[in-house]
């Protein structure tokens, strides 16, 4: 996946050995998933599926298929890994899903409070509120918002990698930056991509989903948000 994953672990009352073991295993899980789902690796299961070298998919691949189908349905097609050039490309979902799985490894080791940030897609263990800053797309030294986060938050945008997003319905990508908060990160991640592509169309969809909120910034710098979107006070 070629990205940085950072872990924030509350290690109070936990031994160094326990935290180290948990982090080692979480990292190992990320590497296993990277080996299976990387599009950079020609021998990954995903690459081999795309090339038609294998036809049977693993149970993990099936899980990704299923999540992609759900994200496609929820976003009414604005997230659609099946229309990407080069074949099925679940990258917009897999990064968040992998972070989710790494987080559950920490949970299984008895870590009570932790945050994982996979290249800007963030998930946290329930029970703690974390303040997550949202990179300002036009003024990179600033944050454009700080969002209290208790489960997951993802931001998609065209400001760093250039326009790598595709509107399945043709036309422009609506937002230069789009953030979705709540729910589980696999879907939150995919829906942030959908929101960046679809803008207001997807914002209306989010408005109707309990537990998910979001906002986006359009090409002119205007910000649009769902009615339940909550920001921290200290945006400075």
């Amino acid at each position: 996946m070629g990205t940085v994953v950072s872990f924030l672990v509350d290690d109070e009352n936990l031994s160094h050995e326990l935290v180290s073991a948990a982090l080692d295993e979480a990292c190992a899980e990320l590497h296993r998933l990277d080996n299976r789902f990387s599009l950079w690796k020609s021998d990954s299961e995903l690459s081999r599926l795309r090339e038609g070298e294998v036809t049977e998919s693993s149970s993990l691949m099936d899980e990704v298929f299923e999540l992609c189908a759900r994200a496609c349905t929820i976003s009414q097609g604005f997230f659609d890994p099946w229309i990407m050039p080069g074949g099925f490309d679940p990258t917009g979902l897999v990064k968040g899903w992998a972070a989710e799985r790494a987080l559950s490894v920490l949970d299984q080791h008895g870590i009570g409070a932790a945050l994982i940030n996979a290249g800007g897609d963030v998930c946290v263990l329930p029970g703690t509120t974390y303040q997550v800053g949202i990179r300002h797309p036009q003024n990179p030294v600033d944050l454009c918002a700080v969002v209290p986060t208790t489960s997951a938050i993802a931001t998609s945008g065209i400001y760093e990698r250039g326009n790598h997003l595709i509107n399945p319905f043709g036309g422009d990508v609506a937002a230069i930056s789009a953030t979705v908060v709540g729910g589980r990160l696999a879907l939150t991640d995919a829906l942030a991509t959908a929101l960046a592509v679809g803008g207001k169309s997807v914002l209306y969809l989010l408005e109707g989903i309990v537990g998910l909120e979001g906002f986006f910034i359009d090409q002119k710098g205007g910000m649009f948000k769902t009615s339940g979107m909550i920001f921290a006070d200290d945006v400075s």
Partner: protein
Amino acid sequence: MKGIFSLMGATVAGFVGVLTLHSPPGQSAAVSKVTSPTSNTTTSSSPSQPPSGTTTTTVAAPTQNVNGSAVGQLENYSYGQMSVKVTITNNQIVGLSISSLQTLESYSKQLEQYAVPILKSEILSAQSTRVNAVSGATYTSEAYAYSIQNALDALHFK
């Protein structure tokens, strides 16, 4: 305030490093892990590439306060080379800046303007209480992390 810094390195299928920052007692610890695709030739030619195989190094808390600044070595990233200056006061990373950034194409101007500040705030935010994380795209992370590590080594900040 006593800080603990430990470095864990692990190499799987090529090129992977793990950077651990244990904040002072009472705060959370943060770890940055760097992965890169093995097919990416620019990163695999990085001069500070860790040895193949799996290595884990854990270093105990420093016995003395670490203070000072150091510039990490120039690291290759996908679009050029970069190095990072790190400043430490009382075992806390208080400053990170790009010491030099050489980019190849006009595309990289984007990185200069956007990616680098993102990464900077990401590392610093690990020690800040205001924001626990930054959401948004990241890219040049790997070279950044290794140059930081190199600078920390130069400061004997373990």
